[in-house]
């Protein structure tokens, strides 16, 4: 479905793991997230991750704009659920870290995504192990390369733009393979 770049988009509310936002920061294309998402919820435990990645200022800017909203702290019950989810993520064959503590932020954002009062219709997750568990939980997923692909379909990005955007993330260490970048560029670029 091709849409014109200036056509009105009905933006959606999502929850977002750290990875997709980091990718958008790495390539300087937060505008792509702003185009499709009216509110992006994150879990409290993710804030420390953004600080660790050197993206505290970028996150702060988006929070001030009201694009990113820090969800309320998890209740005791929710924390228990998050720990169980984190253990399941850690146990996935595709998980690179068998210690569940390292997966608590993505587990917490899954809990946030499932809060009915927030109206999150998708969760942005780029890590395979977390995606597997999120799907088992019935959450609907997308990710940063998916946003880039959609922007290509909407006529906002050429094939070369897509290569450039995803390569900038790759050059800064994000795990997008050359084949993946080429696939997204050739399939979705205008």
């Amino acid at each position, binding site marked *: *479905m091709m849409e014109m770049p200036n056509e009105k*988009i*009905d*933006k*959606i509310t999502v929850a977002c793991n*750290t*990875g997709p936002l*980091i*990718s958008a*920061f*790495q390539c300087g294309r937060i505008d792509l997230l702003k185009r*499709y998402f009216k509110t992006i919820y994150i879990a409290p435990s993710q804030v420390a*991750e953004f600080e*660790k*990645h*050197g*993206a505290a200022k*970028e996150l702060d800017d988006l929070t001030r704009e009201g694009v990113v909203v820090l969800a309320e702290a998890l209740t005791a019950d929710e924390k228990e659920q998050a720990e169980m989810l984190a253990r399941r993520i850690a146990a996935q064959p*595709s*998980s*690179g*870290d068998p210690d569940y503590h390292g997966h608590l932020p993505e587990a917490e954002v899954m809990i946030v995504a499932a809060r009915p009062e927030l109206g999150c*219709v*998708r969760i942005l997750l*780029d*890590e*395979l*192990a977390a*995606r597997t568990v999120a799907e088992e939980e019935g959450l*609907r*997923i*997308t*990710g940063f*390369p*998916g*946003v880039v*692909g*959609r922007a290509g*379909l909407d006529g906002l990005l050429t094939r070369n733009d897509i290569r450039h955007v995803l390569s900038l*993330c790759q050059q*800064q*260490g*994000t*795990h*997008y*393979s050359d*084949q*993946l970048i080429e*696939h*997204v560029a050739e*399939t*979705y670029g205008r």
Partner: protein
Amino acid sequence: MEKRIAPHELQAALLSAEDVDKDVASLSEALMEERARRIARNVLLRPDMRQILRALLESGACENEEEAIARGLKTLSVALSPAWEGSGRGSR
């Protein structure tokens, strides 16, 4: 020099092309659903539209609101198609 931001989850497994295709479809579906909600809300909030819908349902011409709206659009499309064909818009 441009600021560099450290990657997240260095050990994480890679997304496949199939994963991204599913993600694009999933995002597109969510955007379409949101658009459908807005359009339905705006139509159904109009008292004149609600009155017409109620009359159509009470007459038995349509089983439900969805059918009434869909048939209304098809009827309008058929009615306007000669004009479209004349202007070349019908072939798009």
